[in-house]
């Protein structure tokens, strides 16, 4: 019988009631009395010098409050980068200035040249048209290989070249890897592209800056996954506002996918302008602006080699990647191709020798940063694609080739600096094969062939490092912040309870799943627990939500705080029951004395804490409020096995996903329904990357896929029907180092699924006699057709 509450119950998402009935409170719903509106004049050139910027006519237009340009920001800090990578020569990465408003030069289409603040948005837009701006265009740096050539135009004049860093990992292993490859029985090589993506959350970014003249306090309402991080970065590095005079609120947020982690120019501008004008300033991104100002994702070009011995054991992996940084370093950009990517190159396999080289490159494009999975999808894609190619070259079963190389003993220290605490890769593979009915595939292929279609089966595994992260470890790796999480548990006098968490929910369902944990611990109904998040004024300093960390790190902080509460309530109960504290048991919301029928209800103990008439005041303080900060001792390592069956139409190259199966190991699961929803969404995004989505710049640095006419988002009919879409998380090896034994599920689908789809397409093509080694994503009909026809 499935549980109806607490850990393991599929409690319905309470937040969905307000989201689905139009009662949410998103940033754009926030309007401050007397607010003005800002419209940003953005560069339509990819690279150039601003030779003339005349705002005089525009400033006289109706309703214009003030027009800001780069000159107004000369004394203001630039947008900081939160991670410093040290390269293989011991040099720190190149870190160019990242101005809020362009300082004499523009480096990507969409960079802000001027900000027009007016009484209405329409007036601001009209006035922006009257700004005279002349840009002397410079050659645009778009292609990463060309960007690294001798004499290439430099994106930043003050840097020697366009190479941000040349990272080697682990540099000391380089020689051993070269030797292993040279002596290997077989080496499979693959060159591939991990396509540039635009996150496209349903809610575009919004910022409302406010300033209170009476107190001198600034408030920013913004679409963020981590309001405390924004407060710290913007307050300390950009605007010089101490944190106690700055409040950042991220209310309901309609999807983040990583792109709302970062600190952006627009929110810094609104906060700055509100103070300068003594008037609230609001900005709501249009979809077009989102395409050219939200940080993009992925954009790697990679060459990977997999070396095997005569018995098909993996002996070495070597990869070289060019990673696009765009024109400036976004908040966590340097960490994505390095520490979130190189550390995962062991995958699920006991390959003894691994060397990863990543060259990060500046180009005249929008900055690139973390997007759902961040580095781990890029690692998984290349590894699982090259294994599939090796299996085909060697004529062995791709399942068996993987199985024989699985890591089976835990903890396992990889040659790429991480230690997997637990896992069972055979179990997820077994589960996936059972759900797949692999034996029935031949018959399904025949049915497809009878319709003139080619049917392919793709399988692969994945592992990810989640629950980021141990602060002492990431500090050594270059993080400029800690990555703990926090929670305050406040029990009210009548026994209800509020958890103020540093995590942020923007679709993950914390308001439902966090109370399930508290309900399990104390034994009170879930609806007695309220979750407060997203406001620096009423939550403890937290690092926010990304990297599948909320439950593993934020949830663990909540458990620690709740444990403190339980310890204190037990003391109070012992006093009320005149018993020894060691004999007090808490179960189903009732404290009892072991071996007796004496008990007191949770609510009565809470009341005693706030009305301490009969209370051990000499031993403990009144009140029930506790805070805990939790810093994990390791990452968590969710893993799984995925399968996909596609039908390819050889006449048109069209690919349809017929079945998709995921068998994940997320450790313990708090709310199965939410976990399944997260995996569904992740797989949908992974299928989007594999078949549809592609962000394209032309050779002049113009963004030519900047609307839904040209950037193909996955739609319902691009995905398998629900009945053919099986997500399973019954294989559970609990995380060994956090109190909940959870691993995180938010990114898994997007990490595991792209290679599954491509492997399936290639299997289909081979079944039709088309010897195609690789198709780059997105596998559009044109690309598949060209591959079939040898073009």
């Amino acid at each position, binding site marked *: 019988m499935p549980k109806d509450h607490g850990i393991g119950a599929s409690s319905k998402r309470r937040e969905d009631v307000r989201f689905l009935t139009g009662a949410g409170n998103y940033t754009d719903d926030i309007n401050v009395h007397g607010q003005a509106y800002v419209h940003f004049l953005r560069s*339509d*050139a*990819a690279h150039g010098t601003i030779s003339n910027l005349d705002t005089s006519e525009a400033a006289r237009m109706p309703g214009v409050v003030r027009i800001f340009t780069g000159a107004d920001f000369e004394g203001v800090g630039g947008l900081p980068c939160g991670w410093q990578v040290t390269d293989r020569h011991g040099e720190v990465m190149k870190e160019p200035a990242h101005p809020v408003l362009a300082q004499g030069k523009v480096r990507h*289409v969409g960079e802000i040249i001027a900000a027009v603040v007016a009484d209405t948005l329409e007036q601001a*837009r009209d006035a*922006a*048209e009257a700004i005279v701006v002349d840009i002397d265009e410079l050659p645009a740096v778009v292609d990463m290989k060309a960007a690294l050539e001798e004499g290439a135009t430099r994106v930043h004049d003050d840097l020697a070249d366009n190479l941000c860093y040349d990272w080697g990992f682990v540099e000391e292993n380089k020689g051993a890897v070269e030797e292993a490859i040279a002596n290997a029985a077989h080496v499979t090589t693959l060159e591939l592209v991990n396509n540039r993506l635009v996150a496209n959350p349903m809610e575009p970014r919004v910022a409302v800056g406010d300033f209170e003249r009476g107190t001198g306090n600034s408030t920013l309402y913004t679409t963020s996954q981590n309001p405390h991080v924004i407060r710290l970065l913007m307050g300390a590095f950009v605007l010089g506002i101490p944190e106690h005079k700055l409040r950042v609120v991220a209310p309901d947020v309609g999807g983040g996918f990583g792109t709302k982690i970062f600190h952006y120019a627009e929110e810094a501008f609104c906060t700055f302008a509100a103070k300068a004008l003594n008037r609230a300033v609001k900005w709501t991104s249009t979809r*077009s602006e989102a*395409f*050219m100002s939200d940080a993009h994702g992925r954009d790697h070009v990679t060459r990977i080699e997999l070396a095997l011995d005569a018995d098909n054991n993996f002996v070495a992996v070597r990869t070289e990647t060019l990673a696009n940084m765009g024109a400036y370093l976004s908040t966590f950009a340097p960490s994505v191709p390095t520490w979130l990517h190189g550390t995962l190159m062991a995958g699920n396999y006991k390959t003894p020798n691994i060397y990863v080289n990543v060259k990060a490159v500046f180009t005249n494009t929008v900055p690139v940063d973390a997007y759902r999975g961040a580095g781990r999808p890029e690692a998984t894609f290349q590894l699982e694609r090259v294994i599939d190619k090796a299996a085909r070259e060697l004529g062995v079963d791709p399942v068996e080739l993987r199985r024989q190389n699985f890591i089976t003993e835990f903890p396992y220290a990889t040659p790429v600096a991480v230690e997997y605490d637990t896992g069972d890769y055979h179990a997820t593979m077994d589960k996936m094969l059972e759900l797949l009915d692999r034996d029935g595939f031949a018959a399904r292929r025949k049915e497809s062939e009878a319709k003139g279609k080619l049917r392919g089966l793709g399988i692969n595994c994945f592992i990810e490092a989640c629950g980021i992260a141990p602060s002492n470890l990431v500090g050594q790796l270059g993080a400029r912040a800690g990555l703990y999480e926090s929670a305050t548990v406040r029990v009210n006098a009548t026994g209800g309870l509020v958890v103020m968490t540093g995590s942020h929910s923007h679709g993950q369902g914390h308001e439902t799943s966090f109370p399930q944990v508290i309900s399990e611990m104390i034994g009170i109904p879930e609806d007695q627990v309220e979750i407060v998040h997203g406001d620096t004024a009423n939550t403890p300093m937290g690092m926010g939500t990304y990297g599948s960390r909320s439950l593993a790190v934020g949830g663990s902080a909540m458990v620690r705080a709740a444990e403190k509460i339980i310890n204190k309530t037990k003391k109070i109960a012992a006093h009320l029951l005149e018993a020894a504290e060691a004999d007090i048991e808490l179960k189903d919301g009732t404290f009892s004395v072991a071996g007796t029928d004496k008990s007191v209800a949770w609510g009565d103990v809470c009341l005693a804490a706030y009305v301490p008439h009969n209370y051990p005041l000499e031993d403990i303080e009144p009140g029930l409020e506790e805070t805990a900060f939790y810093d994990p001792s390791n990452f968590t390592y969710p893993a799984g096995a995925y399968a996909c069956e596609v039908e390819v139409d050889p006449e048109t190259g069209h690919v349809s996903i017929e079945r998709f199966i995921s068998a994940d190991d997320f450790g313990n699961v708090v709310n199965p329904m939410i976990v399944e929803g997260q995996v569904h969404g992740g797989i949908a995004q992974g299928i989007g990357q594999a078949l549809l989505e592609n962000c394209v710049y*032309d050779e*002049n640095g*113009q*963004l*030519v*896929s*900047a*609307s839904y*006419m*040209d950037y193909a988002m996955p739609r319902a009919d691009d995905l398998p029907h629900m009945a053919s879409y099986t997500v399973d998380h019954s294989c559970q090896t609990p995380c060994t180092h956090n109190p909940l034994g959870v691993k995180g599920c938010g990114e898994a689908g997007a990490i595991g699924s792209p290679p599954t789809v491509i492997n399936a397409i290639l299997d289909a093509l081979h079944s039709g006699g088309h010897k195609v080694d690789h198709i780059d994503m997105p596998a559009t009909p044109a690309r598949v057709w060209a591959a079939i026809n040898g073009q």
Partner: protein
Amino acid sequence: MQLTDSREIAAAPDIVWAAILDPEVLKRSVPGCQEMTGTPEEGFEATVVQKVGPVKATFKGRVTLSAMNEPESLTLTGEGKGGAAGFAKGGADVRLEPTETGTRLHYEVEAKVGGKLAQLGSRVIDGFAKKMADQFFANFQEAVEGPADPEDAETVETAEGGEKKKGWFKRMVT
């Protein structure tokens, strides 16, 4: 975007040459042109209203003439700013070759767009540029020679209130 084509015009090269240098001919030839002022030496100022895919905008810009080798060849370059719509810029290398019936006008056009035009219109931009170039030279031919179709001529001539048969420009200079 690059485009190479040629067109036969029933007028001598020196007449065609003079027409290219005439702001009034250019105004009539550039599709959507509202205003065209200036001189061949100083360059021309132009205002053009055009719709590219979903983006409609008023472009203000300059057209300059260079590499002038009368009456054989010259280069036209132009850049128009369309405000929020972005920009369009391009050039045409034009060569005039005398033929038995008049002049063979060869052109090589190169065009570039930026901003919203590139973001929203890239899918249609090549077709649009070809259409613009075709229309430009068709209009130009008509201005020099007169309309091919007598009924069109009627309309044009009525609007201009002048005589028929010849193109209005040829009529003025011959």
